[in-house]
């Protein structure tokens, strides 16, 4: 087994942790509110905090097993840790930082130095001091340093949270490059929906120290946002570009249960795309309408109606086996008599693209840009 297998419980102060999940290669996000226990779980895997009982296995090596009395110390765990605050050694050059695991940690050089430097775009920074780097550069060095420690697993504890929005956008393509170019499983802690939606293959939902759900990002976000803050709530849809109209700059994305049109230039037929649909951009109708500027009208089935006393209500809709959310006024829901199981039409005013996924090895640094369908009135 190449991935990570965690089944631990423990207690930090008055806070109880109990978590069981698996992660394979690709990015697995530990997602939940601040204070849900995500970072504590990460520390237990890294060995800087100790579970009271359970078992942690990474790449076939037992790191912790309370039943057999195994508890490897952090240097022995072969885990690359990317901290929120980078933690570069201030008295060493970028190069010395990057190679620290080799000269101080006696880790094997399984990954060529130049390759990692190129992957993270650090060629021109090697002889600089960490103090002179920007926040984004610093975090890239930290990621490179972890990659060069021959890790069986990479742990990232909110690596972007200390950066502003622009810098985050700068780092995300590098993280995607790591996902596609290395086979190292990444466990990524975050409480940012957009970040996780873009990066994660699998989401482990953490709530009050417990795993409350595990699944593909698309499914988890469809469920999750029902009881999260309404304004930014949304869902993910996955599909494949089936046609591209260069004249109007529109692509057709085919997915289970329907087809969505999308604006943008940078598409190729066959691209896998992940679409983010905000609940507030979804309207419902009983039937398909002519004479509307909205182009995406997709048949759906009402799956769940949220309970809420305010003006708005969340409605979960099934499109094929995928799920999106609509934020409607409570009055509309009651006047239209919308009920679970109804066949309706979802009108999507706007769709944003999260990531075009190309065949492995090809990473487009500009892929983070948002494209949206732009005909809302």
């Amino acid at each position, binding site marked *: 087994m190449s991935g990570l297998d965690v089944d631990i419980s423990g207690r930090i102060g008055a806070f109880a942790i109990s978590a069981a999940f698996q992660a394979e290669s690709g990015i697995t996000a530990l997602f939940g509110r601040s204070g849900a226990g995500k970072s504590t779980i990460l520390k237990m895997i890294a060995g800087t905090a100790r579970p009271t009982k359970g078992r942690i296995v990474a790449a076939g090596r037992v790191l912790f097993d309370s039943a057999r009395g195994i508890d490897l110390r*952090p240097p022995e765990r*072969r885990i*690359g840790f990317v901290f929120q605050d980078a*933690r570069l050694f201030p*008295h060493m050059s970028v190069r010395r930082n990057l190679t*620290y695991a080799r000269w101080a940690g006696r880790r094997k050089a399984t990954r060529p130095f130049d390759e990692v430097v190129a992957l993270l775009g650090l060629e021109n920074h090697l*002889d600089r001091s960490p103090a002179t780097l920007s926040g984004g550069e610093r975090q890239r060095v930290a990621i490179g340093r972890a990659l060069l420690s021959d890790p069986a697993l990479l742990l990232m504890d909110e690596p972007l949270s200390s950066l502003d929005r622009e810098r985050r956008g700068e780092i995300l393509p590098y993280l995607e490059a790591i996902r596609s170019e290395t086979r190292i499983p990444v466990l990524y802690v975050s409480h940012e929906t957009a970040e996780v939606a873009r990066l994660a293959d699998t989401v482990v939902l953490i709530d009050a120290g417990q795993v409350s759900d595990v699944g593909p990002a698309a499914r988890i976000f469809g469920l999750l946002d029902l009881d999260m803050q309404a304004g930014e709530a949304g869902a993910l849809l996955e599909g494949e570009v089936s046609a591209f109209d260069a004249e109007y700059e529109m692509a057709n994305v085919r997915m289970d249960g329907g087809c969505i049109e999308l604006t943008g230039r940078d598409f190729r037929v066959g691209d896998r795309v992940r679409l983010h649909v905000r609940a507030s951009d979804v309207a419902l109708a009983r039937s398909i309408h002519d004479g509307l500027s909205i182009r995406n009208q997709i048949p759906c089935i009402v799956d769940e109606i949220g309970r809420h006393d305010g003006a708005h209500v969340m409605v979960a809709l099934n499109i094929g086996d995928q799920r999106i959310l609509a934020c409607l006024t409570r009055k509309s829901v009651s006047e239209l008599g919308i009920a679970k199981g109804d066949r309706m039409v979802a009108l999507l005013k706007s769709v944003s693209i999260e990531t075009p996924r190309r065949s492995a090895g090809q990473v487009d640094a500009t892929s983070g840009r948002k494209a949206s369908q732009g005909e809302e009135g």
Partner: protein
Amino acid sequence: MEESAGAIVLLSAKVALTAIAVGLVPAFAIAWLLARRDFPGKGLVQAVVTMPLVLPPVVTGYLLLLLFGSRGPLGRFFESVFGLSFAFRWTGAALAAGVMAFPLLVRPIRLSLEAIDRGLEEAGHTLGASRPVVFLTVTLPLALPGLLAGGVLGFAKALGEFGATITFVSNIPGETQTLSLAIYTLLQTPTGDAAALHLIIVSAILAVAAVLFSEWIARRMQRSSRQ
């Protein structure tokens, strides 16, 4: 007053350097304990370390005489186990200087240790480095400015130490008569003023040189860490 100024300066430098060289290691250990560990009696340790700074030097010298004199318990221990005697020897002068300088060594080291982000050490461990290696590659280099500041401050203090030294090992030319003691002796003799002035200038130069040296090292370290 037969000793030449050069011999006096050499003796003083030997005494002060020995005091600092021997004192730095325990000073670092105690600074580390005070900065990093909580243990019962921490307040007491801190008080004992600060003692030489607040006690009259003559009292410290007398306590050293009681403990490390030829009849003192520690004096007898060192004599029988290591063949090392302090009474009326330059080694005693170095001990007195070291004890007096000790609080000045500990404090800057402790401050620099406290300023180190523990997260850096944690990062070192996750990169596979063992505790001793992280100590040598991360903790020690980052604490170096504190060690240096403590060393220079302590050296200057040891060089000028008077009260504890004269009480503990007396004022023996060629053995325990360091700069301050020699200046004091000269000032007590009717014709010694000129020679005293000579030594006073030398000691001022030494003190300024020590401070300049530490500044130079500090700047060099800063520059090399930025590259």
